[in-house]
Structures are given as C-alpha cells and as structure tokens.
C-alpha cells in the first residue's frame, strides 16, 4: 500500500469495507476551524508500512475452494486481485457448483487472477478439495516444466500453502502479513489471520475468529466476547490450538507430513483438529492478527444448503466438535469422555428446550444421535490419531491451549449468575436502566423506580434481608435434629426414596383413588433439595415470609408505583401466612398458596396484557397453568376460583380468541396434569375443599364469622386477638380507603370482588363438614387459605387504590390533610411492623416443634421393621382422653393421612381399632381383644399418660404380655408374637415374611391373610398359580391350597406409568412457561451468521 494513501481511502480498502466510511468523514476538516485533524485518533499508524520485510523468498501456493459461491466470489476474487503480495501460485477448485461460480473462476483465470482452475466433486469436503487441487496442480505442472509449482518446492522449508474460502475477502496485505510473521519467527509452522465479520452499517467490524480451541464438550472456544468489535485489542500473536482453515498458512512440509485435514471432518473443526495434530507432532501454531480476512461464514449461516453443512449447520458443527474431542481422547479415558459428550448434549438440549429454542435442542439431539449411531467415524479418526507419536511435552502444550474441564460449568454459571443478577437488579429497583429483556419484551413495568446508588442498600434488598434474618430468629426453636411436626403436619420422610416409594404405591382398600399430587410435588421438591424432604418442609414453613416477599415484590412493582405503598403491600402480604397460623400449625398448603399466588397473578397478567403475536405471547397461559398445578395440588378448590376467573376472563376477552386460547391453556394444564387424581376428587367431592393431610384436623369447632373477618381460624399458634384484630382491621381500613379513592378502577374492583368471593367461601366452608378419601373421614375444612386469598386481595386492592395518594397530597394546598396522611401512613406501617415483631418474638414457637420421634422404645421400632412387620397401637391418655394412632413400618409420615394411614381405605379396621382402644382402657378384659389386635396386625400396645388404675385395667387384658417401658410410656407385647401376614391353618397362625416367601405344605386348604386392607386389585400367586381371593373381614385374604411353594402377592399401581407422563406434560408446560432465550446468537446462530454474511450485500 502506498504510504500516501488518504485516510478514507485506506479504510475503504480494509476488508469488508463498505465504502461508507468516507461519508462520515468531514468534507474538509478545515471548515471546523480546528488546528488539528479531529479524526487523527482514527488514523492508521503507518510506520510499519515503511519497514516491509522481504518475503519474496517464500514460495506460496494458494488454494481457493469454491462451491455455489456466485454471490460472494466476486468480492473474493477482487480482493485476491488486489493482494500486494501475490502467492507464487493461486489455484482454485470448484466442487461442482450449479450457479455461476465456475464461470467467475474461469473469468478470473482468464484475467490472470488465478493460475489454474480445477474441477472438484460435489461430495468433497474442504480438506479433500484442497488435496485434490494440489494433486491436479502437481499433475498439471508436470506437463508444464517451465512453471515453478508446488510439486517442485513441496519439501522445502520456505514453501507454504495458503488456504482460502470462497466467502473470504483478504485484506490486500493479508498474505504479506502472514509471510512476514513466519519470516520473522521462523519457528511458526502454522498460522492464521484475524478473521472479521462484514462491517455493520454505522458500526464497527466484529471479530469472527483469531485462533480457536475446543472444550471438553466440543464447544468452540474463541476467547472472544459476543460481537466483540475489532479495535486492535487482539492484535498480539498468540499460540493457539488451531486456526481456521480460512486463510490458514501452513508450511508445505507440515501439510504433507500430517496428510492434510482429516477426512472425517469435511467442513467444520478441521482447522482445530489439524492444529491439534500439528502440536502433537511438535509444530507451532501461532495466530497472525495483523493479517486480516473478512469471512462471511456462509457455511455456518446455512447459505449453502446443497453443501455438506446442509440445512442444519449447527448439527454438523456439534457432531464434528464431539468427534474431534473423542477422537483425540486417550484410550483409557475414552469411555468417560464419551459419556461426558453425551451428557453435555442432553444438558444442552434440555437447556435449549427450557429456553424455548427447540431448533438448537434438535441440533443437539441430532448430533448426539449421529454420534452414537455412527461409531465408525470416531473409529476412523482415532485410528489416524493413534498413529501419532506425540513429541516431548506436546500433550502438555495441547492441554495448556485447551480450556480447563470446568469451562462448560463456568459458562453455565456465568449465564445463570447473569440472569440472577439481572433479576436481582430488577427486584432491587434498578429499573431506570431498562434491560434488554424489558426492551425486547412487551410487558413494561408501570413503575418508574428510583435508582439506588447501591443496590444492596435499596429498601427492597434491606426488606428482604430483614425478612430472612427475622425468619431465622422466629424459627430459632425449630433448628436442630429431628422432624418438624405440628397439628397439621406429619413428620417428613427420612429419605426422598421412601417418599417416592409412597407416591408410586397404590392405596390399599381404595381402588378408585391415587396418591394425591401434592405428595408428588413434595417428592419432586425434595429431590431438588438434595433428596432431603425435611429441608424442603423446613424451608416452606420457616422461610415462608421471605419466599412470599420474593414472590410478591415483582407483582407489586408492576401494579403499584409508590415504593412506600409497595413495601407495605409486600411486607404485610408476606406476614399473612404467619398471622393466619400457617407456620405454627404446619400448613404446607398456606405456604404454597402464599408463594404461588403472586406468581399466578403475574402469569395471568401476562396472559391478558402480552400482545398476541409476540414470541413469548403464550408464556402467560403456560405459566398460569404450571402455577395452578401446584396450587390445585395443595388446595384443590383453587380450580374453582380459576374456572370462575377463566370464564369471566373469556367473556371479557371474547374479542381476542388467542387470549381465550391462553386461558384455555392455563386451565387445561392442571386439568391434564392432575387427570389421574380427578376421579378421586369427583368420587369424594369433599376433597376439593381441603388441603394436604386434612384428616389430621378432624371436625374442629367452627370459628365465629366475626373472627373470620379478623383472620382468625380455629386453631393454635394464632397471634393474640388484639394483635390480629389491629393488623387485619388496618387491612380492612386500607382496602376501604383505597376503594373509596379509586371506586372505578377495574383492578381495585377486581381485587375487592376476589376478596369477597374468598371471604364468602371461607365463611361457607367453615360451617361445613366434608368427607375426605380414602376412608370417608369427616373433617371440617380449614379455611385459612381462603382468608389468605381474601386478605391478599384486600391488601393489593388497597395498595392500588392508595397508590399515588401521597403524590396527590403534595400538589394540594397545605391543610390538615397532609399531616393526617403522614401520621396515618406511619400508623399503618407501625401496625405491620408490630405484626412482624410478634412473629419474631413469639412466632414459630408452637405448637410446631422439632420432634425426635423417640417416644417408642428403639427395640419396639426395630421389631416393627422386621419381616413380621407388626403394627403398634399407641395410646396417649395424658389429657384425660384416649388419643390413639396405629404406627407401622416407619412411624406416620407426611402424606400418610391422605393415604388412610396403615389401614388405607378400610373403614372397618379403623372402627375396630377405636373399639379396641375403648375396651383396652376401659379394662373390659374381654378375650376377643387379643385375637382382634392380632387380626389387625397389631403386635404392640404402647400407652403413655395412664394412671395406675388404667395401667391395671390394660394389664388385665388376656393375651397381653408383661408390661415394660420407660418414663415416656409402657409397652405391652401381644402373646404369641404377631406378624402382619400370616398363614391360617385351622386355629394356627404361621407368620409369613415379605413376598416372595416360601410356605410349607399343609394338610388342607389354608388361607393367606396379608394384613392389608381388602382390595380387588390385590394379586397373589403360589408358584405362578393365581390364588383366589376370599372375602373375610377388613383384610385381604386368599385361599391357599395345601401344597407348599413360593407365595408372591402385590397391589399393582399404575402410578409408575402415569407419573412420567404427568411429569412430561408438566415439563413441557414448564418449558413453555419459562423465559425464552433472547440472545439471537444463541437462539439461532445460523440466522445471526446469515445476517452477518449478507450485511455488505445489503449495504
């Protein structure tokens, strides 16, 4: 280049230059009256232009490979024509293009730009084409002895091979820079230029690639930021694992020794693989950033559909990346590497699905399928890499040039922390700076948030921190070993395996009923909590306030502008679960509803407000559906509210069928996911109105109506009446004032309507007694959830009504109203703070507690877990009444109440136990007690709180052994010892172990009593012969023939088949509800590449 080249002209000559630069330049800088050229900073340094290195001694053969490139080839050929340092020989090979490519090449040949043009085949990959071109050219040169060609110089160190793509435009000095670099540093054997993407209009030129590496999962490692603009920051030559084949300059001897590119990698990753092999053979691979090429990457853009990249270049790239990694893996580590690659594909596929990029997920799965289905490719590649005898320290060099093994995790963590950070910033109020999501989304916050200087010190963050600390203090007595127990909470399972086992098993004695879905969700959550159900329960009950706050704030941000009102709304709402006794009574449903309710409202809001044709238009429907699954599982009556709201919404939105469709999705998801459970609910409608393990509550007295209006349900653990009265009274007042201020605002009226409907439901249900499955036990519905709904609606309605009130006051002339408003606001806040103080000081201290479950002596618990599996009748007489339960296997655990405890759906067994308890403590001492206890499989009677008189009465019962025990209680063991499953032959009972179990031959036909509730689904076999069921009392009995054999019996359950289907539907719904990946280069890299590839065309 001439040293006198004008600035604009110089830039015009840069690769990819669109010629737009001169338009931006001032016509005459002198017009501005400046002493110096203001654009001097943009001037190119020209010192190095003056000290050109002599590269004339280098003999370069350049090979241009073309295929259907008529759109881009002219620019490439023009650039080649302008090279200031021409290769010794410039040849081209065309892989059977069907467009004008061949014509263009021939023209270039005719004009002297190309020295030769050869015909390749359509199936040629890049490496094969280069190889063929060189062979053709060698043959050609043999015929022309006067031409100095590649063949004659191929084994000399100064002979080089330069590879060119048909969509690449080299800078005029590109070859010179490459040759100059290898001339200065003669240890370089392989180098590549800085590849740039075409220049954007009014923008910089992004770097495409400056050397490349590959991660352990086959990911391209470019060490570049997304859309990183070239500002010279990558201009230091660096040793890299490989370089792109586009513009690659390779020593001819190295090319020959390594045998060119691997034929297994015809399009992508061939450069990095070649570099890898070069390193292993002791050669150096260094980038030459001073040499620049603009690379359109039409292959990655999918603009060559007839080519080897096909229409899914992403699939091919992923597959070839995996092949490279697996192909170079040490033999011993290959299985692990293979598994890691498969796993990474699956994880990425799931990630893309969650991000709603099914195309990328499909790429991953197609690549995985091809990788697994065609092992010969890997075998071929490995057979070639196996022959390499690595040079000394070559492996260490390769290792150093590859990213560490955790780079994938690092990338994932970066993505997640980025998302979390964005979420936090949004939550903490940093919304003046609109996020990309917000700008690209169609759901804008109505709030204009004051931007805090320090987000960690924003009121929202501080409120959240206070809530967390307060929760820890309030739950101070609940930390430690043992299980959380409360009047409405049974202890959690010891392990998630036990929980899942319960979920999938059938309920004996209740053929039409299945395990309620809330147990499945708890099991699912426990699995996510590292398999610890207790942690999940503790989090739900002890962390309900901060979790509720976290869920409520985003909603409040969207509907309330005034931050003070918003904080009051969120804080007061977050306190509702504890003020309603949820934590102290162990009400899991209340926690779930409190957390999910704001999410549901937000999803519903999105459902209504999002424009119908946006990418995420249906998210609201799916999101509402997913949240409803959780809500309905824990509080089934929510489906009534949802249906009512859905019908009303459909009427209001009747002009927008797509929105009605979203409502249909929202209602359809819970109906479909919970489909196996609906027969249970329909057959026992009472279940619709009660939550988890509702049997524990029994038929408690109903609270007076006026107390319900003050948020007081019946039960322990409530705040003092005056505390509740003041707080809930303030909520009423605030809601009424809000309504009075905004009597026509639809949102306020809707909130009031919801509150009144919920309150009506609470009052109505609190008067009723309903039967719940599986045994039709009568309970009075606990209406705390409806009260939560009602007061939540009042709070949000009041908040919306009062929003902007302080602003109104500031514009009014000063009167008594302003100070009164200030005092009222302070008073309202103080009341809520007072509620929080009560909760912190006396909150989670009872009746919820952490129990060690050690009342029963260990030897008895061990006996219960033996093969005989006897049950234990526990009677507590400490308060003057006889309270009892029957324990089996592993105490009573979460969800057992909804499964009918140990007797499943048998009402007869339940009543008999009640009878037996009466007779035992009354001391009737009748001789049927022992046989009846034995028939129920009860082998132990444990009594606590009994006085000497009652002890003596129980002691008088025939068939009870000598009493023993400790200060906690007394145990009687039945004599003879009881087994749950027995073989009955005449009057003799032979204990039988768990199936399959051998049984001895008998003299006559016998009966197999399995000790579980009778159910038509029970199946039993003796050596494969089906046994005939016999109707006999509460338990399942089979007639057993005289011959001995192996007995098996089981209660089939279809839950193991249904759960995966339900899970799949929920997963799909969850994926569709999740926020989509919005970054275009991740969503559709081919499209991004296509846009980049066609930029200069458009320009």
């Amino acid at each position, binding site marked *: 280049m001439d040293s006198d080249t004008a600035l604009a002209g110089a830039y015009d000559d840069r690769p990819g230059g669109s010629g737009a630069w001169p338009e931006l330049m001032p016509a005459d800088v002198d017009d501005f009256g400046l002493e110096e050229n203001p654009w001097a900073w943009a001037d190119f340094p020209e010192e190095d232009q003056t000290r050109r290195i002599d590269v004339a001694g280098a003999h370069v053969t350049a090979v241009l490979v073309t295929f259907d490139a008529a759109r881009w080839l002219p620019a490439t050929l023009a650039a080649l024509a302008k090279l200031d340092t021409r290769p010794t020989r410039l040849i081209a090979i065309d892989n059977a293009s069907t467009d004008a490519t061949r014509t263009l090449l021939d023209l270039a040949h005719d004009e002297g730009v190309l020295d030769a043009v050869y015909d390749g085949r359509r199936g040629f990959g890049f490496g094969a084409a280069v190889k063929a071109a060189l062979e053709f050219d060698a043959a050609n040169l043999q015929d022309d002895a006067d031409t100095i060609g590649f063949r004659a110089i191929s084994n000399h160190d100064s002979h080089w091979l330069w590879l060119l793509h048909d969509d690449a435009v080299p800078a005029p000095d590109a070859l010179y820079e490459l040759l100059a670099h290898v001339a200065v540093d003669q240890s370089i054997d392989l180098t590549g230029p800085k590849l740039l993407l075409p220049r954007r209009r009014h923008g910089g030129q992004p770097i495409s690639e400056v050397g490349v590496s590959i991660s352990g999962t086959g990911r391209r490692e470019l060490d570049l930021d997304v859309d990183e603009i070239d500002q010279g920051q990558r201009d230091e030559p660096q040793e890299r694992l490989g370089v792109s084949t586009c513009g690659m300059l390779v020593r001819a001897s190295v090319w020959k020794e390594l045998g060119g590119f691997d034929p297994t990698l015809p399009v992508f990753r061939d450069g990095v693989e070649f570099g890898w092999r070069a390193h292993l053979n002791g050669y150096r691979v260094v980038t030459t950033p001073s040499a620049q090429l603009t690379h359109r990457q039409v292959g990655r853009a999918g603009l060559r559909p007839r080519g080897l990249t096909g229409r899914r270049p992403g699939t091919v790239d992923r597959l070839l990346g995996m092949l490279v990694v697996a192909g170079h893996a040490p033999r011993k580590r290959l299985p692990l590497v293979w598994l890691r690659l498969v796993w990474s594909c699956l994880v990425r596929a799931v990630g893309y699905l969650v991000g709603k990029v099914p195309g990328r997920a499909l790429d991953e799965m197609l690549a995985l399928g091809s990788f697994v289905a065609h092992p010969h490719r890997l075998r071929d590649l490995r057979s070639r890499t196996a022959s390499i005898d690595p040079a000394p320290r070559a492996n260490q060099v390769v290792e150093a040039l590859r990213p560490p093994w955790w780079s994938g995790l690092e990338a994932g963590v970066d993505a997640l922390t980025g998302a979390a950070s964005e979420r936090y910033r949004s939550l903490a109020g940093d919304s003046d700076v609109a996020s990309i999501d917000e700008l690209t989304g169609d759901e804008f916050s109505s709030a204009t948030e004051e931007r805090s200087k320090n987000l960690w010190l924003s009121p929202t963050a501080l409120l959240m921190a206070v809530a967390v600390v307060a929760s820890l203090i309030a739950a101070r007595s609940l930390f430690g070993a043992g299980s959380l127990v409360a009047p409405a909470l049974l202890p959690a399972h010891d392990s998630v395996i036990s929980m899942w086992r319960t979920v999938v098993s059938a309920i004996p004695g209740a053929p039409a009923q299945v395990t309620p879905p809330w147990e499945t969700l708890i099991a699912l959550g426990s699995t996510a909590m590292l398999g610890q159900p207790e942690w999940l329960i503790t989090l739900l009950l002890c962390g309900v306030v901060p979790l509720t706050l976290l869920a409520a704030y985003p909603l409040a941000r969207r509907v309330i502008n005034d931050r003070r009102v918003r904080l009051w709304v969120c804080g007061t709402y977050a306190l509702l679960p504890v003020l309603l006794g949820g934590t102290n009574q162990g009400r899991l449903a209340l926690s779930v509803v409190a957390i999910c309710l704001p999410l549901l409202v937000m999803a519903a809001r999105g459902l209504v407000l999002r424009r119908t044709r946006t990418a995420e238009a249906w998210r609201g429907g799916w999101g509402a559906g997913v949240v409803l699954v959780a809500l309905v599982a824990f509080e089934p009556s929510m489906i009534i509210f949802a249906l009512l709201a859905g019908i009303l919404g459909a009427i209001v939105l009747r002009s927008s069928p797509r929105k009605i469709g979203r409502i249909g999705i929202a209602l359809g998801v819970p109906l479909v996911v919970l489909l196996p459970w609906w027969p249970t609910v329909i057959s026992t409608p009472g279940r619709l109105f009660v939550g988890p393990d509702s049997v524990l509550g029994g038929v408690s007295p109903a609270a007076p109506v006026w107390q319900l209006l003050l948020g007081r349900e019946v039960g322990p653990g409530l705040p003092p009446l005056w505390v509740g009265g003041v707080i809930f009274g303030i909520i009423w007042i605030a809601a009424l004032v809000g309504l009075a201020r905004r009597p026509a605002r639809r949102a306020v009226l809707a909130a009031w309507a919801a509150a009144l409907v919920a309150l009506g439901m609470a009052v109505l249900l609190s008067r009723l007694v309903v039967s719940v499955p599986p045994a039709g036990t009568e309970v009075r519905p606990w209406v705390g959830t409806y009260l939560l709904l009602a007061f939540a609606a009042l709070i949000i309605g009041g908040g919306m009504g009062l929003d902007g009130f302080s602003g109104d006051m500031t514009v009014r002339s000063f009167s008594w109203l302003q100070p009164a408003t200030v005092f009222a606001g302070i008073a309202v806040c103080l009341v809520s703070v007072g509620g929080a103080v009560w909760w912190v000081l006396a909150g989670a201290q009872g009746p919820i507690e952490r129990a060690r*479950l050690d009342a029963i002596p260990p030897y008895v618990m061990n006996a219960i877990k033996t093969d005989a599996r006897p049950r234990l009748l526990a009677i507590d007489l400490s308060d003057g009444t006889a*309270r009892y*339960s029957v324990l089996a296997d592993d105490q009573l655990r979460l969800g057992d109440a909804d499964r009918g405890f140990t007797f499943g759906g048998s009402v007869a067994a339940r009543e008999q136990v009640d*009878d037996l*308890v009466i007779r035992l403590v009354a001391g009737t001492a009748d001789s049927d007690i022992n046989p009846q206890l034995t028939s129920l499989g009860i082998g132990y009677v444990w009594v606590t709180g009994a006085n*000497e008189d009652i002890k003596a009465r129980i*002691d008088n019962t025939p068939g009870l052994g000598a009493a023993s025990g400790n200060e906690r209680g007394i145990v009687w063991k039945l004599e003879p010892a009881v087994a749950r499953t027995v073989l009955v032959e005449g009057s003799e009972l032979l204990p039988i172990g768990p199936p399959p179990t051998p049984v001895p031959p008998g003299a006559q036909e016998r009966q197999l009593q399995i000790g579980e509730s009778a159910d038509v689904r029970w199946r039993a076999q003796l050596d494969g012969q089906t046994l005939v069921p016999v109707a006999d009392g509460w338990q399942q009995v089979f007639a057993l023939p005289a011959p001995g054999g192996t007995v098996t019996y089981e209660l089939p359950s279809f839950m193991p088949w249904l759960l995966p289907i339900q899970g799949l539907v929920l997963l799909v719904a969850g994926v569709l509800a999740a926020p989509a990946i919005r970054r275009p280069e991740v969503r559709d890299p081919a499209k991004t590449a296509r846009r980049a590839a066609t930029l200069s065309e458009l320009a």
Partner: protein
Amino acid sequence: MIDLQRRRLTLPGRRATTLGAVVLVLLLIIGVGTLLGEEGPTSHASRVPLVGRTTTICTTSAPPSGEPAGKTEVAAVSIAEAPDRTGLLSGSTLKSKPAKLKITQPGKGAQQSGVTSPVVISADGVMASTSSAVIVGDVMEGPEVGLKIAPCLAPATSHWFSGLGATDADRTDLILSNPDDAQAQVDLRFYGRSGRIVVPGSPGVLIRAHESRTVSLSSLVKAEGTISVAVQASQGRVTAVAKRSQTNQLKAAGVDWQIPSAAPSPVVVIPGVPPGGGSRQLVVTNPGAARANVAVQVLGFQGPYEPSGAVSLDVPPESTATVSLKEGLVGQAGSIKLASNVPVTGAVISTSQRGGAGVDMAVQSATVPLIRTGVSAIATSNIADSELIVSNSGDGDVQLTFEVFSYDGVKLRTDDIVLGPNSTATRRLNSPAPSYLVVKVPDGSSVIGGVVLTQPERNVAGLATIPLVSPDLASRAPATRPDYAAGR
C-alpha cells in the same frame, strides 16, 4: 363499571355506590354465615363398642371334709340394655366342662345350685357388657355356718385385700383361679399392723392353667391383728377371692367371701355398710412408702358426717390400721369415704348381732363408682331379706333409678332416688320370687351401693353384702379419638 360510566356518575356518587355495595355484600356474608350454623359430624362419639367375650369366675371351694354340704348356688342375669343384639351367657368349670347355667335372652336370669367348685361365666355378644353373676353360700350348720355372697369376678393382674385374718380365730383362705390357657404366677405382699411382713414362699406362687389354688394365710403368716394382702400377677392373670371364717372359742362366728378392694387411691369409698348392731371395723391399708393421714367420713342419710371416735386415721407406711366405726355409725347403714394424702384402700368388716342367734360376718370392700348402670344379680331371695343401700360420694345431687326384675325378665318394681351430696339412701326390697336389681345412674356421677342380705329368722343372724357392679365396663373408658401425634 360500564353502567356507572354510562350513567355518568360523579366520583362521590361512584364512591358511595361502590362502598355501599361492598358493605352490603359483607353484611350478607356475615348474615348467611351466622344463619347457616355449624354442621357437626355424623358419626357419634358415644358409639357403643362391640365388647368381645368376657369371663368372670364365681369362686367357691369344696366344704370342709366331714362337714355337711351347704347350699351354694350361682345366679347370673343379663340386663336388657340392647334388645336388638344377641348374645350368650354360659357357665362352665375351670376345666371348660359345660355347666347348666345358660342365658340366651337379655333381661333374663338363671341359677345353678349345688356348686362345689369355681364356675366360669362366659358372656358373648350383648351379654358381655350386660351380665352379672353372684355366688351365694348359705350354710346352716357346721364350722362355716352363715351367709356368704360374692359377685363373680373377672381375672386381673392386681388385687388388694384389706383386713384379712391370719390367726386361728380368724382364718382366711385365699383362692386364686386361673381361667386362661397359660399358667399364672403371682406375688403376695403382706401389710401388717407395723409394716410389711416378709413371708417366705409368697413370691412366685404358680397357678396352673384352668386351675384354682388356695393359700391359707393362717398357715403362711403369723401376725397379730388384721393384715392386708396385695396379689400381683407377674405372669398371666387370676381371680382372687378370700374366704373368711371366724370363730369365737372354737365356735363358728361368721363366714363370708371377701372380694378385692378397689386399687389404692387418695379417695376411696366403701359402700353398703349394713345397719344394725354388731361390730363395724374399718380397715385401711397404706401400701405406699409415706405415712397416710386418712380422714374418715360416713355418708349418712342426712349427708356426710365424721364418725365419733374414728374421725381420722394415721396409717404408717406399708401398713394396715383398724378402727371401730360402731360408735360412729350408731347402727345406721351408710358408706364410708376415705380421703387420704397418699393412696390407700380399705374395707369394713361387719358382724351381725341378734339376740339368741349366732353371729355372722360380712365384708364390704372399697369399690369404684358405678358407670351408667349398676347390677346386683340378687335383689331378693327366699333365703334372706334385702335392703338396697346407695350412696353418692360426689359433691352434687344425683337422681338415680332402680328397677327390680324377676329372673323371667318381668319388671317388679321401679323407683327413683334423689341423693344429696355425700349422702346415702336405703330401700327395702321385697319380692316373692328371686329377682335382680338394676340401678341407673347419670354419667359422671359417683354413686356406689350394695344390697345387704340379712337372715332374721335363722339360728345364725346371716349377713352379707353384694356390691353393685357395672357390667358395661366399656362405658368407663375416656373419650377416644384418633390422634396421629400419639407415639411420636
């Protein structure tokens, strides 16, 4: 909303309309909720449990050899509590040999005479909670002359006897019967005037299955005065009855079956102390390790009073104390209420007195209050005169009903009695045929009682007391309810 806008309501108008509507709906909710009332459970908490087969033993022993056999009979009844339910009451020997005694219909009674060995009464179905039986021994001459009656008792693991004799003049045979299929083993503990009496051989007394064993205290224990015995089964269960026989200068001075007293408690009541002359010895047993200060109260016709000379009793630890109530009772019937600082139990040993006639004895043991129904299988008999004595040891008035039925189920008499707090009432019972008595008391009351049988025309002034017993023991159970926190 749309309507409001159409009507172009002003803001105050909208405000008033909306607030009014809200208040109206709220009032509607409150009103409907209040009017609806509270639904209760359909299941009844007071459901009667289905009691299984109960077993009681009517204990007797063979008459002394060479002595003429007396008239010993067993009378069993089943009250008509649940006519729609069926059941069967039958008698057998300890060896399960069937006896003649059988009742198939509720409300009926049956007798078996000539009994010389214990009879096991088995009650199935409705009979299990409605039946009662007594054994009556009426001996007119010989060393065991006199009237002795005892209710048939259920086997148990613990029995308390107060005031037993262990001397030549006051003999006691403790009869232990085991109706079960496994052997029983019992320990006997003796409480004398000055504390525990250590008796070699008293622990580990074996009673084989379906057998009866008699322990003669006078040959086992040497102690002055009355003693108390605790029978504690360490294995199995037994029924225990003490056969008392007193002599005066080698002349028979009374016999009776003494049944166990109620388990020691801070408050115990001894019902059915007969009227008339003769001695009335109150025996109090303190099995605890602390000294007992016992306040004695007579539940009289006019209310409670402190008996002269026996206002209080100081019982050393693990001891038995005796005090005479004769002066305090002044010949009146009544019940004795003992209130102590530590658990005690007791009994009253009464003797008859009639000019020219021999003396008989009767023991009234402490009992527990009746539960809904009290039954005496003998109300009237052709061998003696009867008198019902009922007492209310509670602090409130009690109205009770008593009915007398013939053994054929015919109601012979019905009457109501109102009892003031801590008071006693008596009614003479007259009937030509053997009959039984049913007393119905309110739930939660503290009524105790008994039927006193006297033989005014015999050479021996026969005297016996049958305590009222509640066959429906299940009714004394506290309220039950499932509680899944039990056993944590």
